[in-house]
Structures are given as structure tokens and as C-alpha cells.
């Protein structure tokens, strides 16, 4: 789905909520451009009759489609264990920094 051979590293970092230190944006921009240019070589091939690859997991072990399960409940995690795993909690809910003004 990549639509260009150039992606602005600062913008991507912002979308991913990653803070880049001084100089890192320039460093990664060069590296990213190189990778994208490399992948861009695929554009030289005529792929109009090739289906996109949609499987990447265990593709050789089953037909590669329709891996489904029955609508039957399985045990959930222990509530206390879940809460213990959260950085902060209150009243059985997970507490996060305020997300609305």
C-alpha cells in the first residue's frame, strides 16, 4: 500500500508516537529512503496478473484460508492478574492519563 518512495520520518515518528532525538530524523530518513528505493525495484516487474500475498503465517501447514473457531467461550484471564499487570487501576478498571479535556 506504500504510495511513494519517500516518507517523511518526522511525520511517521509522530504517528507512531516515537520521539526522535536530535540528528535521528536525518539519520533514519536516509536509511528509510534507501529501503524504500530498494523495494521500489519491484515496480519494474509486471505484477498485474499476480494476486497479493495475504498469508504469512504457517502458510504451508493448511490451505491458507478460513481458519475459524466455534463461538464457544473459553476461560478469560483472572481479573486480579489483569489489574496487577496494569500500571494503574481503580475500581477494577485500568486507569490511564486523561484522554479528553
Amino acid at each position, binding site marked *: 500500500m506504500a504510495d511513494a518512495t519517500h516518507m517523511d520520518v518526522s511525520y511517521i515518528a509522530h504517528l507512531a508516537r516515537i520521539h526522535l532525538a536530535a540528528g535521528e530524523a536525518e539519520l533514519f530518513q536516509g536509511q528509510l529512503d534507501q529501503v524504500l528505493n530498494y523495494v521500489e525495484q519491484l515496480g519494474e516487474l509486471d505484477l498485474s496478473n499476480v494476486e497479493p500475498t495475504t498469508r504469512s503465517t504457517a502458510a504451508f501447514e493448511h490451505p491458507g484460508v478460513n481458519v*475459524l473457531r466455534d463461538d464457544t467461550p473459553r476461560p478469560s484471564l483472572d481479573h486480579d492478574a489483569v489489574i496487577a499487570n496494569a500500571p494503574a487501576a481503580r475500581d477494577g478498571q485500568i486507569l490511564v492519563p486523561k*484522554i479528553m479535556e
Partner: protein
Amino acid sequence: MDTCAPMKYEACIGLETHVMQKTVTKMFCGCRNEYGAPPNTNVCPVCLGYPGALPVLNAKAIELCCKAGLLLGCEINPHSKWDRKNYFYPDMSKNYQITQADRPLCLGGQIVTEVNGEMKTFTIERIHQEENAAKNTHDKSGSLIDYNRAGTALMEIVSTPCMHSADDAFAYIQALKLIMEYGGISDCDLEKGHMRSDVNVSVRPVGQEKLGAKVEIKNMNSPSFIVEAINFEIARQIELIENGGKVVQETRGYDSDRGETFSQRTKEDAHDYRYFPEPDLLPVEISAAQISQWKSELPELPVQRRERYVRELGLPDYDAKVLTAEKHISDFFDTACHKTKQYKLLSNYMMGKVASLVTEKGVSVIESKLTAGTLAQVADLVGGGNISSSAANELIEVLFTEGGDPKAIVEVKGMAQVNDDSALEKWAEEAIAANAKAVDAYKAGNAASVNALMGYVMKQSKGKANPPAVIAMLKKKLGA
């Protein structure tokens, strides 16, 4: 609900409606899909987004999504796949939502429904399967997250911008809700957030092909608020254009207290979801055989049920329309129809006494003590001349509030009609003796004067005499 829009503008409205499917478990894990459970008890590594946890598709959710599509006349996509929609918000702990971007399960479709007496067709673009977000609540110190709802099965039904008024949108939502309920796809309980719509509104000069800039009003569940928001928005946009302004494409909220939409300042960056194919899920392929199997399992839709009531039960179309407007009422009526042949009487009670009790007591017919079986018995008692219509209303009220056996109640409360000839004969003779004037008038050819005599008998019998039997007895006595 009419807008005060001048004739030279046309509104175009599209709806993206999220419907929560009636599955036992979530979309990608075996945690229960359960409303009202204690917070964070139906959660696991998959729906909490723990690293390394892998999703597995719920077959029932796929079936319900496709059946919803078949009920709406969609084409089922033989090859569909999954994508990640990336965003950072604590209600989606993986930092992406699994959805379907370019190959949804269902394509096309339509809803045909009545808007102010006119049949209209609204077109559907697609239905895709995705997952629900967690529930957030906010207070002074922070936001609290309950992940019980996270990862439950959610379908998004996207209409084209084919609606042109708030009335159109209202009719579309009502029809869609009814189809989802009848189809067993969703309970569509608005209070529980089973059905929420994002509403897109734009206006353009009549005759212009290109759509105007659209405003999106997010996450609305009340149909009446949707109507208010659309009407406000159409008027606001037209006024803006008339005054030389320009509509800005944006997301707006609806403040139901003020009856206004308001701009929701967009975060510093525009949404950029960076969709890409979901590597953890394999595509879904649906065969023609599977589609015909599902088609054969589709239940009767409201419009079909309405036709059946007219065709098979001989009800007026008005009755059929009222009775099918809510599924639980129609189901109740259907069950009762298996127990009696007095269909019209049943229909009268459902639309009359039962409906008024529901309003008066604030209890639905399902929650009441009345059952389809006891209501059918009431209809049989009236149809067989055992109790009068007024006694039937009284009996229904007792059954509704207290329940019990209709025949036993009739006995205990002395509601039975008297059909017994000797008792009727005695009352008829008394009536004739006490109403000489009416008797003379009747004999002089005024057939209606028999009603005066009839009234006398009903009074004497405290309403228990069976009216047709009284008339017959009076005529016999007078004619003799």
C-alpha cells in the same frame, strides 16, 4: 421533521451504522460477549492486545455478517481479507483495530422502506466486519478503561449518500434495526449501544452533480437525536452558503440539550490510519454452496410477515403493519396464533388493551404476566360467547398484572356470560313487561327499539347476558 430548507438546495445524507452482533464470544478470542459484567473480567491476552497473542476468527460472527448482507440484498464477497487500521487511543490496546479495508465480506445491497407513505429504496455500499473498542469513562483524575467490550464483533453497514432528509434517515435506521432484529443478527438495544451511526451530511444546489463538503456527526445512537442533528446541520450549512461562507469538511458533535451540532476541533494532525494487510489472519473464502445454505436458513423479514398476516390470517394491512413494527410483539402474536383461530380478536387485543396496559404500566408484554397462551384463551372465550368484550378487557388486565388461568379467573370473578335460555327468558319477559313503549314501537315497525329492551336486560343481568342471545330471545318473545 421537515427542514425549512429553501427548494434550491438538496441535502445528501449517508450513514455508517455499527451493529454489534449477537455472538456468545468475541470476534477474535473466546472471551464472552456479555453486557454488564464486572469490568475487565471478560478479557484475555488477545483482547488486551498483549504482545504475541494471535487472533482467531469467530465463525458465527462471519455467518451473522453474511446473513445480514443476504437480508439486505448484498453480494457476498467470495474472497475477503483483513486489515489493520492504526491509531493510538487507550480503548484499542493493540494500537490498531482489525477491520476490512478493500475486501469486505458484503458488497452492495439496499433497504426498501416507507417514508411518509411513499416507498423508497436506499442503497448500501458495503458491510465489513471489525471489532469493537473498549469502554472509557472520564473523571477529574484520569480515564478509566473497561476492556470487556474490546474485541467484540461489530459490523459496519455503509450506505451511499442516498438520503435527502432527516425523515429518510429515520426510516432507514428503523428499517435496518427491524431487519437486524428479525434476522437474529443483533438485539439492536440502543441503550446498550448495539447500534450506533456516524452521519454524513452535505448540501448542494439542486441540479449539481458533485456532492458538497461533508460534515460527519459521530457516534449517535438515538434515532430522534439523529433526526434533530441532521435538521440542524442542513439548516446551518444552507445558511452558511447563503451568507457567502463555505462548509468546511469536519467532524462535529451533537449537543442534544442545545439541539445544535458543534465543531470538534480536530487533533493537530489529520487522521492517517496507515491501513495495511493484517498478517495474523488468513483470508476468508466463501463458497456458493455456503451462501445457498445460509440463504435457506434466513428467517422471515418484517415485510414478509406483514404480507403473511394479511394473506393467511385475513388481517387488515393496518393491523399487520402495527403488529410487525416490533419483533417481540410480533413474535408474541405469532405464538398466540398457534393456539387459537380468533386472529382478528387477538389483533384487536394486542393493538388495544395490551398496548394500553404496556404504556400505562411501563412493562413490556414480555415482562408482563400475560402469555401468548392465556391471551389466546381470552380470544377463544370471547369468540365462543363465554365472556363479553368488556369482561375480556378486564380479564386481560388481571392476566397482565397478576397472571393465572383465564377460565379460573372468569369463574372466581363471575365474568361468564349467561347463555342459559331459562335465565335469558326470564330477563326478556321482565324487559317486555317494564318497557311497554318500546314494545309498541317495535311492533309498529321500529326495529331499533329492541335496543332499549336489550339495554334493560344487560342492566338486569349486570352485563353478563350474552348480547346476541338476548336479541334472539327478545325477538322470539316479541314475534310470538
